[in-house]
């Protein structure tokens, strides 16, 4: 039971990392990035290719792959997404949907749909005795690291000048601009950062989940539900909802296994009924 809860938190760590990236991007650009799952998948494939073809270890891939994907994100934002941001947000949603299809099928063409193996890094192969139960060391590492990353982003957003600018641009872009801050300059790095977070989650997922072209597609829709629960654009809400949904799904799976996949959507329906803007969202979601 406790172990189930722990499983849930580890699963929730992935939801939280992805939801965090989605939320940051949405806050700044008002873009819902459908390709977020594809970038997560590319993160996992990136580390797989690095290890398989070049012998680059997990510890190098962990910072390298997100940085490379972040740069890809920056280029995409500069070339395409920027053109669509002044229009209805739906156009960027459609654009990133097309992008996700392309990325997913390109990888599929190269590697097929079967899962690729990725060994756990040797330092994290054993189990840890957590007092009440023993647990695979790698999972503990994932949970700790994602908590650390989410916490760091939180601190940067709330305690630093950069975070202040980003939050101000998110909430009142015109007013922030009027105060002499170049809001447009921050849009590209924020998008790149969000994409990098997705890639980071992908690298973390490679050793414990099946690395295949479809791994991001289904996950991202669940993450959409998570973000709706937490409140889109609310950074704290998305992260909290990520961990909470992971926990609730794992416990739900323990008691009612047949509900394991649908529970998150039932939660979403309940939240929509009670608070259409999400638990921590602002009212702009509704009319």
């Amino acid at each position, binding site marked *: 039971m406790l172990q189930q809860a722990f499983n849930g938190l580890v699963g929730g760590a992935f939801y939280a990392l992805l939801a965090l990236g989605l939320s940051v991007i949405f806050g700044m650009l008002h873009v819902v990035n459908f390709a977020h799952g594809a970038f997560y998948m590319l993160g996992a494939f990136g580390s797989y290719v690095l290890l398989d073809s070049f012998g680059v270890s997990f510890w190098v891939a962990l910072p390298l792959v997100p940085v490379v994907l972040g740069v890809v994100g920056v280029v995409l934002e500069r070339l395409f997404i920027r053109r669509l941001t002044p*229009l209805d947000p739906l156009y960027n949603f*459609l654009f990133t949907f*097309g992008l996700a299809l*392309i990325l997913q099928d390109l990888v599929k063409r190269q590697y097929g749909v079967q899962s690729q193996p990725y060994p756990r890094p040797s330092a994290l192969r054993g189990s840890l005795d957590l007092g009440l139960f023993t647990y695979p060391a790698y999972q503990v590492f994932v949970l700790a690291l994602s908590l650390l990353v989410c916490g760091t982003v939180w601190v940067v957003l709330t305690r630093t000048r950069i975070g202040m600018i980003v939050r101000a641009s998110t909430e009142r872009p015109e007013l922030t601009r009027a105060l002499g801050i170049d809001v447009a300059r921050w849009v590209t790095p924020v998008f790149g950062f969000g994409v990098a977070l997705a890639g980071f989650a992908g690298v973390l997922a490679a050793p414990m989940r099946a690395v295949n072209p479809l791994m991001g*597609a289904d996950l991202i829709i669940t993450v959409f539900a998570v973000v709706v629960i937490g409140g889109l654009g609310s950074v704290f809400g998305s992260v909290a909802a990520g961990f909470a949904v992971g926990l609730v799904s794992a416990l739900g799976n323990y008691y009612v296994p047949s509900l394991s996949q649908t529970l998150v959507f039932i939660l979403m329906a309940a939240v*929509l009924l009670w608070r259409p803007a999400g638990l921590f969202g602002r009212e702009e979601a*509704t009319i």
Partner: protein
Amino acid sequence: MILSKLAGRPFLLTAGLLVALGLPWFVYPPVAMDIVCWALFAAAVDLLLGFTGLLSFGHAAFWGGSAYVTGLIALHSGLPFPVAVLGGAVFSAVLAVPIGFLSVRLRGIYFAMVTLAFAQMVYFVANQWRDATGGENGLQGIPKELFGLDLSDPFFFYYAGLPFILAGLFAAWRIVRSPFGRVLMSIRDNPARARALGYSIDRYKLLAFVLSAGLSGLAGGVFTISHGFASLQGVYWTTSGQAVMMVVLGGIGTLWGGAIGAALIVELHDYLATAGFEETGIITGAIFILVVLLFRRGVWGTARDLIAARKNRDPAAPENSDTKVGAPV
């Protein structure tokens, strides 16, 4: 101009009917059936996207949901296939009530995400409920029963299925032209004013959502009978995406544009499949991205604008801003 308008309408209508009737003479009949089914599906999605301003990214739930129900009725009851198809359409409309009730309160991008999530829920249910849906195998061997007539030839089945599609398209057209449709457009253009005029906009949106779902179900039902099977693919999110893609390609808010988008994409898929190219997402995704970046009015919308510009010869004609999806074209 009025004269040409009067002459233009029946001309287009007749041309459309002739194309629909003659399609299986030019196109491989099962593919022709696919095209008209997707055309109705696209029109149903456009009813929401183009005329109500709601992007549903979850219509696979209604297309695929109806496919299962149609298949189950046809498999187990022995009733003629029209009954099964109508049963599927009714199921989809009923399924749309709770989903729509929860979704229509959200606007724009939130609506898209929530409908997508609900459709994924339907997908997971279909995947898990193996006794009814056959899980990964789907439902196979669905009969084309119609009072003992032999419809196994796709050419003849096309003409048996076509009336349902045409009826659905006619319904969509009537909805758009009705006072109800006008209210939907006013909600799309200015929800605050529509509400101030006393319209309960959530109720209008919900009704539009249910009607659109019912039409999608009709299309999905005919599609299922035509193929003789129902599968998980029908309720998967790529199916929703494909319908939206057809609408955007044909032109948002044009209703008939979706048919052109459907024809293009179904033909493209057929061509790629024949060529042994399985990763169709690379091609369709690239085309879609180009359309979103460069031709946001789609084939039909662009053509209509060009014709209108020629007719008016008015350089000062207001250039429609497309900052809003489904803005009046």
